[in-house]
């Protein structure tokens, strides 16, 4: 009979049993009939039949066993019995269940993240061969991060033998119109070989042909899966549909698979980057991805690329950077995985270690609970033994209990993990790759089941441990006795290790909390309160000259200023802490100062602004004056610089009144100096030199890039400061923008304060998670301590009663218990401090403004934990001191 049939029989057990019952009844009746035929009376016949037939219940069971899975039935019996036993001690069961559920849940959730983000971050075939071709330039004092130029791309593409292929790309924002509402989308301009480098092709339609990557080709676009679903309702006939990007019509030729998120998940449209060799070396405005040839290492690639770089002046003799300055370009190629998740990896490993510690604490806690329970049940076990239960039977009984408890804990833990993963995905920092793909999959389920079963085995084994003693316990008198020294020691070690682990976590949380506090206390150099910001792009087609762009910005600003409640408005090509980073960066020329021979001056970030920007942002003007509205309208060639620029360029000179230039002919006069504002992140070690210039003298759609006039003012970030909340202001602002041109999409709409919050978001996220792990650890540690001390007191009630009866005062008794608790706590804390001191360096990369040896943090967290531990043992101590000697002595 197949196991499946047996299983099926188990399911229809009631039906089978009912049939058997009837069948046997008939059988009995037939025997009775036979008896009556032989002349017995009814009663005799029945008795005779019963005697001959035997026990129908036993037969039914035997018949049933013959056709079903007996072991499953037995296991079920064990489980239900165990569950019933657990239900009878609800405090123990609920405590163990919740402890396990929280710890297992936290581990499952973090493991799900780690698995997706760290172990398999790049959903491309043989993704470990993918590298990012970054460069450093000693001449610019940049060790790495200057990325790639189109000229270098062709140079490598033609000559590099260590690479199977190199693709470059740059990402910007464009206005997507046609059919639905206009919106700003992130567009990556990629070379047409990107798909073959990544080895991923569109799930629908086709990829770009090589010809489509040449200037003059018919514009085409490949959509991300997300955009296809979101904007086009997953239209199966999407291929061939037209869309309009920045006013230029293009045809959709394909949709990437859902797992594709390159360069990151925010990019929704891919278009070909139009490049030719004739364009020359170009600027370092592209990122790149390359595939290493098999069996070659990153070092091989770097070595070859460095030798190719040495050859550059010969290939691009006219490129100024190769002749005018000694750029000292070096290849700093790194693996793509490292480039994408290097910064996040450490955080996640730390998180995993934290939740792992919580699991250990939880296990120690549950082990203590089991130990206490095992002690309490010693006599029960001895009785079972005496009544003939075998070792295996008793083991099965305990293992069933721990299995039921641990699996239930695991199940509950998975529910916790589900909630936790949702929260992680919702609140996680945007730079976690594949965050949106994180879910509890089979592997995570497996891990949970394995963790649950292993803990079940471990806890189930605790009562069986030193079973030799069990038989003896029946001989002992009925009086309760204190437990053996070794058992007590085991319990103390368990409690002490919980305290030690909890201390490590609390110290970590303390460090991160202090960093966060310091980060939030940094003066950002502008006023983030009550201001709405959004980004507005004017399409080149409709707004084809700098004059028309500036006029439109002015018109919109004027109407925004007229809104009720608005106190100030302005605009800039880039706000502080912008994701875009440099926006526009270049070294600066100072009038009358010769170009340095061997090194480039520091790069300056340029910002084209509307009138009153410095005042509207609430930036601190240190000297001179700002750029007002009339200066912008008159196109005055003036500039305001920040302190960092003054320090970098004018250490020994007066900056005010000096003429500076980005390019060749436009000279700007410095009229003011403002305090530094953060460039990309809060708490940057050094300020980034910045220059603010009127938008009317900066770059525009009709300014050729070669003029180097400054950032393109076609896209500006607006800032509207108001007496009312930014969110209330938004609908009115939207109407203002619709009135000149309803096709203009607002992007990145958010209060200025959000930008500041986002800058500390990742630290906040890490801190919140570690703080949660630490509080969980603290709570579990305190419960463990409390439980252990309560048990000690309950075991020693008689002894305490005797002491009190003999005249010990209650304070002394309380002190005795408290001392025992503190010895354990302090031993744990000494170990914990050692581990924390040794391990705090791991945290260093996450910290800001606080040393990983900061004694204040160590002191505060240790004292806090000591306080909790003392409180946890003080409660049982107080109970001990209130023992009534008469009751204690009489209770036995």
């Amino acid at each position: 009979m197949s196991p499946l049939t047996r299983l099926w029989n188990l399911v229809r057990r009631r039906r089978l049993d009912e049939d058997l019952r009837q069948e046997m009844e008939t059988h009995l009746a037939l025997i009775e009939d036979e008896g009556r035929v032989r002349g017995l009376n009814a009663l005799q016949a029945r008795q005779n039949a019963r005697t001959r037939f035997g026990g129908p219940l036993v037969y039914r069971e035997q018949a049933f066993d013959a056709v079903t899975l007996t072991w499953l039935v037995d296991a079920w019996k064990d489980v239900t019995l165990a569950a019933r036993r657990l239900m009878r001690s609800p405090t123990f069961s609920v405590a163990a269940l919740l402890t396990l559920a929280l710890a297992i849940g936290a581990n499952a959730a973090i493991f799900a993240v780690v698995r997706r983000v760290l172990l398999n971050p790049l959903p491309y075939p043989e993704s470990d061969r993918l590298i990012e071709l970054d460069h450093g330039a000693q001449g610019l004092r940049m060790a790495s991060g200057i990325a790639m130029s189109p000229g270098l791309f062709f140079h490598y593409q033609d000559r590099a033998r260590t690479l199977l292929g190199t693709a470059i790309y740059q990402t910007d924002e464009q206005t997507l119109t046609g059919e639905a509402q206009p919106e700003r989308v992130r567009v990556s301009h990629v070379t047409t070989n990107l798909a073959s480098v990544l080895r991923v092709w569109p799930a629908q339609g086709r990829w770009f042909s090589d010809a489509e990557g040449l200037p003059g080709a018919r514009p085409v676009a490949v959509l991300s899966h997300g955009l296809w679903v979101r904007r086009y309702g997953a239209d199966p006939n999407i291929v061939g549909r037209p869309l309009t990007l920045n006013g230029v019509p293009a045809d959709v030729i394909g949709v990437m698979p859902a797992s594709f998120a390159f360069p990151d998940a925010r990019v929704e449209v891919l278009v070909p980057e139009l490049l030719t060799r004739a364009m020359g070396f170009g600027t370092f405005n592209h990122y790149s991805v390359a595939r290493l040839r098999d069996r070659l290492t990153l070092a091989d690639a770097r070595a070859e690329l460095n030798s190719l770089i040495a050859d550059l002046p010969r290939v691009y003799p006219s490129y100024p950077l190769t002749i005018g300055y000694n750029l000292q370009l070096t290849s700093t190629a790194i693996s793509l995985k490292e480039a994408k998740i290097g910064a996040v990896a450490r955080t996640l490993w730390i998180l995993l270690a934290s939740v792992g510690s919580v699991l250990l604490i939880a296990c120690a806690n549950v082990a203590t609970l089991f130990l206490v329970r095992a002690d309490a049940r010693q006599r029960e076990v001895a009785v079972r033994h005496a009544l003939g239960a075998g070792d295996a039977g008793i083991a099965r009984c305990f293992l069933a209990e721990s299995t039921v408890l641990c699996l239930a804990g695991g199940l509950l833990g998975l529910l916790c993990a589900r909630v936790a993963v949702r929260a992680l995905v919702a609140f996680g920092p945007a730079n976690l790759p594949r965050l949106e793909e994180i879910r509890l999959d089979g592997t995570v389920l497996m891990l949970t089941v394995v963790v649950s079963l292993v803990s079940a085995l471990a806890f189930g084994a605790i009562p069986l441990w030193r079973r030799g003693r069990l038989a003896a316990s029946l001989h002992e008198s009925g009086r309760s006795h204190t437990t053996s020294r070794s058992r007590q020691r085991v319990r103390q070690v368990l409690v002490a290790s919980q305290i030690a682990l909890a201390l490590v976590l609390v110290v970590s949380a303390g460090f991160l909390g202090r960093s966060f506090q310091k980060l939030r206390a940094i003066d950002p150099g502008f006023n983030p309160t009550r201001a709405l910001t959004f980004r507005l792009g004017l399409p080149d087609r409709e707004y084809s000259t700098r004059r028309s762009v500036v006029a439109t910005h002015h018109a919109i600003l004027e109407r925004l200023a007229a809104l009720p409640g608005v106190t100030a408005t302005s605009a800039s090509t880039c706000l502080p802490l912008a994701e875009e980073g440099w926006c526009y960066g270049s070294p600066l020329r100072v009038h009358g100062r010769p170009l340095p021979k061997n090194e480039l001056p520091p790069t300056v970030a340029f910002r084209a602004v509307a009138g009153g920007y410095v005042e509207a942002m609430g930036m601190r003007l240190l000297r001179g004056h700002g750029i007002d509205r009339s200066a912008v309208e008159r196109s005055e060639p003036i500039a305001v610089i920040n302190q960092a620029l003054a320090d970098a360029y004018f250490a020994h000179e007066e900056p005010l009144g000096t003429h500076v230039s980005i390019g060749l002919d436009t000279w700007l006069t410095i009229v003011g100096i403002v305090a530094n504002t953060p460039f990309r992140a809060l708490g940057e070690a050094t300020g980034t030199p910045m220059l603010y210039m009127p938008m009317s003298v900066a770059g525009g759609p009709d300014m050729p890039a070669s003029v180097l006039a400054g950032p393109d003012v076609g896209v500006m970030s607006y800032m509207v400061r108001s007496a009312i909340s930014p969110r209330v202001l938004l609908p009115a602002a939207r109407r203002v923008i619709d009135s000149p041109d309803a096709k203009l999409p607002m992007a990145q709409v958010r209060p200025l304060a959000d930008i500041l919050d986002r800058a500390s978001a990742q630290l906040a996220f890490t801190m919140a998670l570690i703080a949660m792990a630490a509080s969980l650890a603290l709570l579990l540690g305190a419960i463990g301590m409390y439980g252990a001390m309560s048990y000690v007191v309950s075991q020693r009630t008689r002894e305490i009663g005797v002491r009190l009866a003999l005249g010990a005062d209650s304070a002394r008794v309380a002190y005795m218990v408290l001392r025992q608790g503190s010895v354990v706590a302090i031993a744990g804390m000494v170990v914990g401090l050692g581990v924390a001191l040794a391990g705090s360096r791991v945290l260093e990369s996450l910290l800001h403004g606080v040393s990983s040896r900061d004694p204040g943090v160590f002191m505060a967290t240790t004292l806090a934990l000591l306080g909790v531990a003392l409180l946890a043992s003080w409660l049982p101590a107080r109970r001990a001191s209130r023992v009534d000697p008469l009751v204690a002595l009489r209770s036995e």
Partner: protein
Amino acid sequence: MPKHPNDRLQGTLDLLILTTLARGGPQHGYAIAQRIHHVTDEALRIEEGSLYPALQRMTGSKWLRAHWGTTDTGRKARFYALTPQGWQQLEDEERQWAFLTQAVNKALRFA
């Protein structure tokens, strides 16, 4: 799984039940037990405790088919009949039995 007490005799019991059903057509449990009792000149008595588990097992293995019916005396009873697989099984077991008894006979004669 605990060993069934009559595992050793199981082959014989199966053979007896199969033969009984093959000779006498569909019968209920009581009739099967009675018939074996009679045809063996009251030498063999099938315990009800062995009969029903065996019937269950053999039905589960699809050798027998069970259906509810009424006896001559008007009682509701479950009747067992051989399936094609049951006939096949009977053939196999008869052959095995013959082989076994011959072997034992030889052993007894020449021992």
